[in-house]
């Protein structure tokens, strides 16, 4: 690893040839989010549509990837099929370490393979293998087949793949990473599908010398002890993020039945503890992270009526998927939630988007806007079997309705009616009906993600209404997170990687120059991403919030319409100012 220079593998899928490029931009672009933006500036065209074969699909890791614990995420960037604008999606698994140990800071895919293919890369190999026989194959079966086809480096490779949803070009198609993690949101799966890429194998088969600083190994040990010997990250591996289901329900902030409620006694069936007690099979971890926050549940099904013939599946769960396939659909049984998620995993749709979309469709049926002519199956809140079938129909774009729904709930609502109750905040909402700050923040956030900022946390701690303080918080928090996603750290580690610790890590790893400008780096990367977003068409004033969000009642009482509109306007203005700032 050269601290000064990025090493990038650029693959032209049209020819099947690759080229290693070295870019001297480390000081300004850092890695991860910053590097992804730099590469999109170089290889992307803001004006051409997302499905243009020349638009790049980018994976980027950071300067601390492989060097410190929890530096375990990969940033993907692309022009999103959801809104045809620049975006990022982040994933864990083994992808980050595999890419680092293959010797690359980033992978750029351009062009389009002649037929459905898998790409395999490593330190000294590049192979584009036609895999037409994988057409229509679900993401789990694809993973098994990829393991048979690309046998080298078991345990030290990462396997990315898409399901039918990606092949069909659905804007809510995800990329499955190593079975239990995902580049989930905003349609990365469709981008790969458009490029005729069914899977990517990244083999981390090289090695690098230790940083020369004698304090490097002792600092690694110190950070490792912070995350394993203290309670700082215990909440993530104990019950995990699902612990928040009960918490959010208790403060009337958990969306239920398409956000018609924010609390429900049915929570007792789907709490984090209930999932752990009933379904938790084991924990897993991303490579390089000793926390092990991945919670893998088990479903067991009898597949013959008379005899004792059973099958079992393992399904990862987290707060967000449980909200989307649980409370949002009125499902209050742990195993039923996992059964719905299992189908979403196989077809390769983002579970958050798909759950919210099906919740809207259910209410649209209730209101007579849709019928089984469109939905094919009966959709009723609380009825699992209908949702299992509907998830399959959605992920395979089974008819005109599901194809449109796969482009996004907003797109379907425009066609069929029901825009007022389409729970879309830039994209399908995350599971936080916490109040005005979160609604404004997700609707305008860079990724339209609950992880762009800590808005949902702010809502839970502040009943006062101070727009200036809110906007200042959102912008400052975004810049901090931008820095972490450029390293590329898991955001669960944000309490560990304070600016001081981050500076120490960079210093002993040979990036002393970067430390001098750390804060300004985060701000500049944030602005750089916004410039790309605006260049590809984003206009804050064009984002409108459906009426449903104005009728929510949280622990603070009914949503204050004027306050929400003011926050959204002011936040939009500040973002626009960032994008207009000189680069």
């Amino acid at each position, binding site marked *: 690893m050269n601290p000064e220079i990025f090493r990038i593998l650029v693959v032209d899928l049209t020819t099947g040839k690759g080229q290693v490029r070295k870019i001297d931009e480390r000081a300004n672009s850092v890695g991860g989010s910053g590097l992804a933006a730099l590469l999109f500036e170089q290889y992307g065209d803001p004006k051409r549509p997302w499905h243009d074969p020349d638009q790049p699909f980018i994976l980027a890791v950071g300067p601390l990837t492989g060097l410190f614990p929890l530096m375990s995420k990969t940033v993907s960037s692309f022009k999103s099929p959801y809104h045809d604008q620049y975006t990022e999606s982040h994933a864990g698994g083994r992808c980050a370490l595999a890419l680092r140990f293959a010797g690359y800071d980033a992978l750029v895919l351009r062009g389009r393979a002649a037929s459905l293919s898998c790409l395999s890369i490593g330190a*000294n190999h590049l192979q584009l293998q036609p895999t037409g026989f994988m057409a229509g194959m679900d993401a789990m079966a694809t993973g098994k087949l990829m393991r048979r086809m690309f046998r080298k480096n078991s345990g030290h490779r990462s396997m990315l793949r898409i399901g039918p949803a990606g092949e069909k070009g659905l804007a809510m198609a995800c990329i499955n990473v190593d079975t239990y993690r995902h580049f989930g949101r905003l349609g990365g799966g469709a981008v790969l599908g458009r490029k005729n890429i069914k899977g990517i194998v990244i083999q981390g088969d*090289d090695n690098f010398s230790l940083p020369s600083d004698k304090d490097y190994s002792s600092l690694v040990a110190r950070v490792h002890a912070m995350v394993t010997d203290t309670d700082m990250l215990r909440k993530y591996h104990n019950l995990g993020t699902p612990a928040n289901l009960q918490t959010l329900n208790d403060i009337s902030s958990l969306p239920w039945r398409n956000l018609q409620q924010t609390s429900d006694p049915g929570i007792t069936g789907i709490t984090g503890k209930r999932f752990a007690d009933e379904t938790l099979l084991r924990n897993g971890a991303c490579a390089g992270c000793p926390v092990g926050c991945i919670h*893998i549940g088990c479903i067991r099904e009898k597949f013959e009526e008379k005899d004792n013939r059973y099958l079992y599946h393992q399904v990862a769960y987290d707060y967000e998927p449980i909200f989307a396939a649980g409370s949002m659909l009125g499902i209050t049984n742990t195993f039923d939630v996992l059964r719905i998620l299992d189908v979403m995993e196989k077809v390769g749709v983002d579970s958050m988007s798909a759950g919210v979309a099906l919740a809207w469709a259910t209410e649209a049926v209730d209101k007579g806007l849709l019928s089984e002519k469109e939905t094919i199956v009966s959709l009723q809140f609380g009825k699992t079997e209908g949702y299992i079938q509907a998830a399959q129909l959605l992920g395979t774009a089974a008819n005109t309705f599901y194809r449109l729904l796969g482009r996004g709930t907003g797109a379907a609502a425009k066609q069929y009616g029901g825009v007022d109750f389409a729970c879309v905040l830039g994209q399908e909402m995350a599971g936080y009906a916490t109040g005005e700050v979160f609604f404004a923040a997700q609707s305008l956030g860079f990724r339209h993600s609950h992880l762009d900022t800590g808005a949902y946390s702010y809502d839970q701690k502040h009943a006062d209404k101070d727009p200036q303080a809110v906007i200042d918080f959102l912008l400052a928090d975004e810049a901090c997170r931008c820095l972490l996603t450029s390293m590329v750290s898991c955001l669960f580690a944000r309490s560990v990687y304070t600016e001081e610790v981050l500076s120490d890590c960079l210093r002993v790893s040979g990036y002393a120059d970067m430390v001098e400008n750390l804060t300004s780096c985060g701000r500049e990367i944030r602005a750089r991403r916004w410039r790309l977003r605006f260049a590809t068409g984003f206009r804050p004033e064009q984002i409108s919030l459906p009426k449903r969000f104005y009728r929510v009642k949280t622990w603070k009482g009914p949503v204050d319409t004027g306050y929400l509109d003011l926050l959204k306007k002011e936040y939009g203005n500040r973002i626009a100012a960032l994008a207009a700032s000189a680069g």
Partner: protein
Amino acid sequence: MSIKILTTPHMDRCIGCHSCSLACARLVNKKISWETAGIRIQSSGGLSSGFVARHCLACDPPPCAAVCPTDCLRPRISGGVTIRRKLCIQCDSCVAACPVDAISRDRTGNIYLCIHCGLCVDFCPHDCLEMQSIKKEAGEEKL
């Protein structure tokens, strides 16, 4: 006398974080990698099936040392081997001789295998790894 070897009695607790491999590469072999390590973690047929650790099982006598033409690998008391890297001619005989695929090579042909130092143990968050004492009297075969 009592000498310790690395054992992996609780691999069913393994979460696949690779902290042990990364620690071995870093502390023993002065590398950043998950390949250049004496203990390497892989899934046993996809992540759904859990994990296995590939590491030296301390054969006594060790077949890898028996085929080593330069005495780079020499039998260690109570099983396993010691390594004298400068003597290695990268013939790969040891790699082929290891019955449990515990010796890895990097791209330049250097070999890596567990020397039972135990530095990886403290980095396992779930105590999957243990150093175990092997008692051996003079002239006695290890069980």
